[in-house]
């Protein structure tokens, strides 16, 4: 394990506390969206949509530099910000999903975008050039209401596991 304290330059405590809170805030909004997708459209099992996700080309953001075994701070921050921009774009692609879901989707997207700004600012404060555009491939295009809903289930599911990884890394960095 890479001791967190040995990482230079150290992250500000305020950044870590705010980031942990932002992750929890986004996760709460994410599960609310998943619940709504399940209640409204009976789409409750992301694992049943893997083939569709594969065929639509819905991307998943890596956080390999944030794993405790190979924690590399600037790489981790870049991957974190890159992933957040990716999921913000993916949520944006879902616009028009349905009137009932639009408010929850908007809030989630804004929270993800604000967290990306928090990370970007910390990178700038550390003198690391921030990511301005997600480096992953192009966003999927959805051609039916069902594809948008299924895309929503997958995006929310991938975002939750991405945030779970980020939370573990941030928690580790806080010790």
């Amino acid at each position, binding site marked *: 394990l890479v001791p967190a304290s040995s990482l230079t330059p150290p992250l500000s405590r305020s950044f870590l506390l705010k980031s942990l809170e932002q992750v929890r805030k986004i996760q709460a909004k994410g599960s609310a969206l998943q619940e709504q997708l399940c209640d409204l*459209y*009976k789409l409750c099992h992301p*694992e*049943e*949509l*893997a*083939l*569709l996700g594969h*065929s639509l080309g819905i991307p998943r953001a890596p956080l390999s530099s944030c794993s405790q075994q190979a924690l590399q701070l600037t790489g981790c921050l870049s991957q974190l910000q890159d992933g957040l921009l990716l999921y913000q774009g993916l949520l944006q692609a879902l616009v028009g999903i349905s009137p009932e879901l639009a408010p929850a989707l908007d809030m989630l997207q804004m929270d993800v975008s604000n967290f990306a700004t928090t990370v970007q600012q910390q990178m700038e404060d550390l003198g690391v050039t921030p990511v301005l555009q997600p480096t992953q491939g192009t966003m999927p295009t959805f051609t039916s209401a*069902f594809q948008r809903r299924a895309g929503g289930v997958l995006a929310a599911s991938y975002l939750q596991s991405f945030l779970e990884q980020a939370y573990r890394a941030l928690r580790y960095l806080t010790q």
Partner: protein
Amino acid sequence: LESCGHIRISAPIVHVGNPVTASCTISQNCSHLDPKPQILWKLEDEAKQPGDRQQRLPDGTLESTITLPHFNHTRAFLFCFLQWANSPQVLDQAELRAGYPPTAPSNLSCFMNLTINSLTCLWEPGPETHLPTSYILKSFKSRMNCRSQEDPVVDCVPEEGQSYCSIPRKHLILYQNMVIWVQAENALGTSASPQLCLDPMDVVKLEPPTLWGMKPSPDVAPPPMGCLWLGWEPWKPSLFMDQKCELRHRPLLGGASWETGLPSSMHTYELCRLLPATAYALQMRCIRSPLPGHWSPWSPSLELKTTT
């Protein structure tokens, strides 16, 4: 990889209990993922089931069709599954809806509100249709007995789920007859209420008059025994209307029934032949007259005591 599967349904909205037929076609690039691909169907939370027929089409796509003989849900999702690496995969989802065509809206009634200057009509929509159903208050201007149709009035569309609508003053010609009805429409049909023929001013909603006891002035003899002096005034916004009014009274205690009478046309009145030293409850209501109108509600009770 374009999308793998696509559901087509006979009709997205059907009459409750009618059959629904659906087909799910799986593109070749997805169906070849499994040596013996099987398409499964699922309705809402029910168990997965194979289709009635599954066949490979000339262009290589795989198609399964299923018929739900009696679709009794009002709203349900139909899923098309394909087994992929041992896990059932949803390839498409269709929303099925069932309901009833709208029955004719009933009990249409309208009243003219003199304070907000609009004609409000209300109706009963009839039994639930389970489908998005629009209700529109339609009307056109007419002449004497509403047999002729003059220029139409703009449609009055009520707020979502409400069974009343208000036609603003600028769309009304007062003192002229107009024909009014409600039209209901959904995916399964339309219906219309019976038509009303009315002049907005003949359906004015009158508020009750104001009633008060007249205090005898020092230099004037008090009211004779068993009499009360009353003052009253019709509801201010309706003062331009000729009206007749009714006064009713009964002793406050003892649960006697109301006695009703017509006060004089002047706005003060001496009510006699009452029990002396007795507290009375008095109420008044008015109606446009001789032109047509509706009675106002009774005014709040005025409590006065006769002299001894």
